[in-house]
Each structure stands twice: as structure tokens, then as C-alpha cells.
């Protein structure tokens, strides 16, 4: 079985959907001739032509809006944001136009907005954000965040086939750093189902995106001191797999919620509330969160390192929780 990087897996997933369904087409800045800033769409212009791989002006609002309009005509556009930070430039079209249309008067809006997010590559404040909560908080959108190359391919395909607007986050730090066995055939990963990345019994670490790897790193260390950590990879935030979360909490009785996103209003807060509501009796300790602090993402390496949650912080939290 071929081994692909996270980035190659996304590319293959898009490629297969483009081959399979002529209504799928791509819009974005520098995605055609240049193959995309990260080369995700490399080769696609040559293969599928300028009608289906469209280089756009710098107009995020118009790009998203045009995607919505084309979707109403039966197409399935996939919009690339050069960096997910720039999604803010098309915010109105996403939250007011795309998200609410089906609820309001019926038509489906099958668009995917995808792009690289996350920190760890010294991108500075505008090339490193994790802004998923803007869209988690907007009913009508789906939010997908794969952590493995296998899931990246299966989930981008599922997202393209979904009839709702999907915001698809690819973590740029993972792009070339992680690899996986990725089947060459057509397969989907369902949106809304979590994955047990590692089985464990003492502490459940619930997370998504690049932090899944951080959690696994910490888990390996903690194993040596006899703390058995289960890692749950959410894979999507809207919808998310509540049952998997609660099941893990019931099993382990102690939980750490981990995300790279900043603290206030981060997904951990939502999970903590649900766990408290529905699994209170099963808890043997308080719910811990490990997140980035509430600041913009800083540029200089020591500052960025301080900002990002890492394995050590997870280990420290786990030790405190284990002792409770």
C-alpha cells in the first residue's frame, strides 16, 4: 500500500473526486499555474483544465460567494483559502450566506472551503491561526479537522460529497511531517465519527488535528510511569461524536481536553460542559484543559514554542490528574 503524506492524501482525495464527479471544481488564489502555495493542487490544472481549476483574483468574499452561486446551480465547488487565516476576508459570505441558506428557504449549498491552518512553522499571527470556533459557532456549517493522512483523504472526499457547506482544516505542520498507509481506492471516512487513536484506561485525552500527535507522544511517555492514556481523535467538530467522548470518559473516569486553539471559547469548553452534564457521575477528578493561551500567535520561535501546547504540558497535566 502506498505511503502518502498528509498533503498528498488531501491531493489524492480531491483528485479522485474531480475524476469521479464533473460537477466538482476548484477555485482559489495561485492554485492553477502555481499548483497552490503548498502545492496541494499541483498537476490539477494540467489534468482537469482551466474550467475546473480556476485561478482567482484576491477576492475571498467573491470567491466564496461565487462558490455558493455555482452550488445553487448544481455544482460542487471546492474553495481553497491560501491560509485559513484569510477566511476572515470572506466571513460574511460563509456565515450569513452559505450557512443559513438551507434553513431559510431550502436549497442545499454543497461547498467545501479548505486550507492550511495552525502554527509551528513560524508563520506569525496571520499564517498560523486555528479559527475553527468561528464556524463551529455558526449553525449550518460542518467543521472537519483530520489528523492522519488516511483520514485526510477519506474526509476530504466525504466533505466534497456532503450536501452542506464544510469548512475543512488541514494542519500545515502535518502536511509533510506525517505519513500513513493510504489506500489507492475510493473510500470515505464518515463526518461525525471519532477515532480511538490509542486505547487506554486511566486518563482520556480528547483532541483533534495536530494535537493528536502531541497527545500520542505524551501517552508514550506516560506509559513508562504506569499511566495508561487513551487518545480520542475527534476528526470533526460539527458534528462531533458525543458518544465516543462520553464512552471514553466513562471508561477512564479522568479526562484532559487538548487543542491548539486558544482557551476562551475553544472547543474544550463545549466538551467540558457536555461531560459535566452527561457523565458527572463517572468522573473521578476535575476536567482539565490544555490549550494555547489567549493571545495572537507570535512569530519568534521561543515565543511560538511557549504559545503552543506540547507533550510536556500534557504530561504535567496527566500526572496531576492521575494523582487526584
Amino acid at each position, binding site marked *: 500500500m502506498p505511503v502518502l503524506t498528509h498533503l498528498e492524501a488531501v491531493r489524492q482525495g480531491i483528485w479522485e473526486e474531480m475524476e469521479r464527479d464533473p460537477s466538482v471544481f476548484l477555485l482559489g488564489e495561485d492554485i492553477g499555474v502555481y499548483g497552490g502555495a503548498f502545492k496541494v493542487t499541483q498537476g490539477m490544472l494540467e489534468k482537469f483544465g482551466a474550467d475546473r481549476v480556476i485561478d482567482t483574483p484576491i477576492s475571498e468574499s467573491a470567491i466564496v460567494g461565487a462558490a455558493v*452561486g*455555482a*452550488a*445553487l446551480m448544481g455544482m460542487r465547488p471546492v474553495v481553497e483559502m491560501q491560509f485559513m487565516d484569510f477566511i476572515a476576508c470572506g466571513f460574511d459570505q460563509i456565515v450569513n450566506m452559505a450557512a443559513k441558506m438551507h434553513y431559510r428557504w*431550502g436549497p*442545499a*449549498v454543497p461547498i467545501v472551503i479548505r486550507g492550511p491552518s495552525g502554527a509551528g512553522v513560524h508563520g506569525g499571527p496571520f499564517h498560523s491561526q486555528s479559527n475553527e470556533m468561528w464556524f463551529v459557532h455558526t449553525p449550518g456549517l460542518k467543521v472537519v479537522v483530520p489528523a492522519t493522512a488516511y483520514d485526510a483523504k477519506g474526509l476530504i472526499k466525504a466533505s466534497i460529497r456532503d*450536501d452542506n457547506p464544510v469548512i475543512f482544516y488541514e494542519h500545515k505542520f502535518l502536511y509533510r511531517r506525517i505519513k500513513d498507509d493510504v489506500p489507492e481506492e475510493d473510500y470515505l471516512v464518515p463526518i461525525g465519527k471519532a477515532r480511538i487513536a490509542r486505547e487506554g484506561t486511566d486518563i482520556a485525552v480528547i483532541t483533534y488535528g495536530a494535537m493528536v500527535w502531541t497527545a500520542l507522544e505524551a501517552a508514550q511517555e506516560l506509559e513508562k510511569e504506569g499511566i495508561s492514556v487513551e487518545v480520542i481523535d475527534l476528526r470533526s467538530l460539527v458534528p462531533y461524536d458525543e458518544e465516543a467522548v462520553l464512552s471514553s470518559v466513562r471508561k477512564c473516569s479522568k479526562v484532559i481536553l487538548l487543542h491548539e486553539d486558544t482557551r476562551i471559547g475553544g472547543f474544550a469548553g463545549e466538551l467540558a460542559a457536555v461531560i459535566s452534564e452527561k457523565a458527572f457521575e463517572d468522573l473521578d477528578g476535575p476536567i482539565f484543559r490544555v490549550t494555547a493561551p489567549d493571545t495572537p500567535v507570535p512569530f519568534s520561535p521561543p515565543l511560538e514554542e511557549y504559545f503552543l501546547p506540547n507533550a510536556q504540558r500534557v504530561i504535567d497535566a496527566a500526572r496531576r490528574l492521575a494523582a487526584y
Partner: protein
Amino acid sequence: MPGLKAATIAKKVVEPDVKTLERMLYYLKLTREAEQLLERVLYRQGKIVGGVYVGRGQEAIAVGSAIQLVEGDVVFPSHRDFAAWIIRGFTLRDVFLNWLGRAHGPTRGRENTNHFGDVRRGLIPVISPLGDTCPLACGTALVQKQRARGNVTLVHFGEGTTSRGDVHEAMNLAAVWTLPVIFICNNNAYAYSTPTRQQYAVKDLSARAPAYGMPGMTIDGNDVLKVYDAARQAIKRARAGKGPSFIECKTFRMTGHSAHDAAQYVPKELFEMAAKDDPLARFEKELVAMKIVDSKRLGQLEQQIAKEIDEAVAFAESSSLPEGADAVKGVYCEAGCVWQATGV
């Protein structure tokens, strides 16, 4: 390339056929009467909740343009383009059911005013952040261009809306991609309380068009035949693959911004002057002069329209309101849905 002078248009006015003229008269009168009822009766009786936005005095713009659409064309009307819905096949019942927030209306009570549409009928409504529909119009036009059946998209917005970035991005996109989309600007002199001199610094908004590389024109928006002709030319260009156009229709907003707004910031003289320029009165006069209708026929038409409206309103009023629990349903489209209200 840019800008056709008004005089040129006048010489080339191509009269629509008699049937089309009669249809345009019908739509103009229907709009006037229906909006009169919405704004000055139902709203004041408390039967409509929320805002009421009508297009009194601006009716020629929607009628003159939308009447030329064929199957496969798409229109994005503004909140002041009532006639577009009827022209595209919605019924008066649909309209009043939605205004009255009824369960069996086109949005099941979820959206107010005329924020409803139907992709199969090629009508897509605004959302309240105005100008957002312009990029969507580029999207529908992009697909129309690729399908190469000669279809076009019309998108309507006011002069105030032209200050929004979405209009700018869309016009630039439409021109650089040579899309079959026609940008129709209803310049009714006021954006809520903001007069045009506080909205932009050009004399005519058609001055924007050449900057994007598309032709633009400014016309008398209260002359439905001028609107018809300008739209005809733009539609012809678009169908022939020559790309977008911009048409500025000058008119006057004969109401407040909405029903609750007495528009006291508008000098009375402006209302008086505009009243003499009423598009409906002008057209009736013209048709009478052309001997296409007489006062008897006009009377019959009025009666017919009144009857249609009364029936639709009565139907809507007796229709049930939605169940509260319906509010949480249908946020997502599952399993290949193409949800549309049953309507009537």
C-alpha cells in the same frame, strides 16, 4: 466601449410586442397594489410582524428587466423588486404566506419579507447584508457560461449597496472572467437616510463600469421601456458571450426605508417632483396614447388585480402558523435533500 449615451438608447428603442406591453402593465399595477396592501394596510393592522420593504415608485426596474428572462436564466432581485417573483412563477399566495410567516409558505415561517426563492425557477433572494448576492451571481453566471446555452444572470442592488466590497469584488470578477451577468443598480436617491452625495463622489455610478473593463450606462429608471431596452442590450451581449454590463436606473424611493420610517429627512419637494414622474402613471399614459389600452380596460385590470390579491391574502390569513418545534429542524441538508416548501 464604456457608457452608451441616453440619446443613443432613445433612438434605438425597440418596442416590445403588444403582449409584452400588456404583461408589463399588469406586473406594474400588481406590484403597486400588492405593496400598497403590505405596507399601508397589513402592516398597520399589525398582521405583518417585522420590517416591510417595498419598491413604490421603482417598479419599472424589475418589470422591464425580469420580463425578458427565459428558462435557465437566473435573477437575484432586491427587496424592492416584487414583480420578479411573480414573473418567475411564484404565486401571490406564496408571497403573502411568507410575509405573514405561515407554516405552508416558501420558508415555513423562517424568513421574513421576500427572502425566499427557488433554484428551479431561477430566483435567488437577498440576505440582509446587501451586496452579498453579487458574488453569487458570478457563480451562477460561471456555470451558465460553462453550460454554453446562452443563459444569463441578473443581479439587483441599490446605490447604497455599491459601497460594499462584495459588489466591487463581484464586478471585477465578472469582467475578468467575461461572465454573462448584468448588474442592475436601482439608484433611488436614498439608502435609508443617506442621500447619494454622502454615499459616493461620482455623478453617475455607471462611471464605475469602465474601471472594471465592462460597459455601463445610466438611464431613466422610471421609464419601463428604457429599462426594457437597456436590459435587452445587456442581455444580448451576455448571451453572445461578450460578458457583463452595468445598468444604473435612476429613480426615487417613494416611501421610507421601510414601513416604520417616515423619511422625514427627505425634503418634501423631492417627493412632489418624483410623484409627477411615477413610472406606472407614465406607462399607462403611453399605452393609452398608443391605443393599446383604454380607460375601460384599465378599470377591468384593476378589478382583476384586486380580486387576485384579496383571494391570496384571505388564503394566507386563514393558513396556519408554524409549530414552534419546527424551528430546530432542517438546519442541515441530509441524504440528498432538495428541500423546498410545498407552497400552493
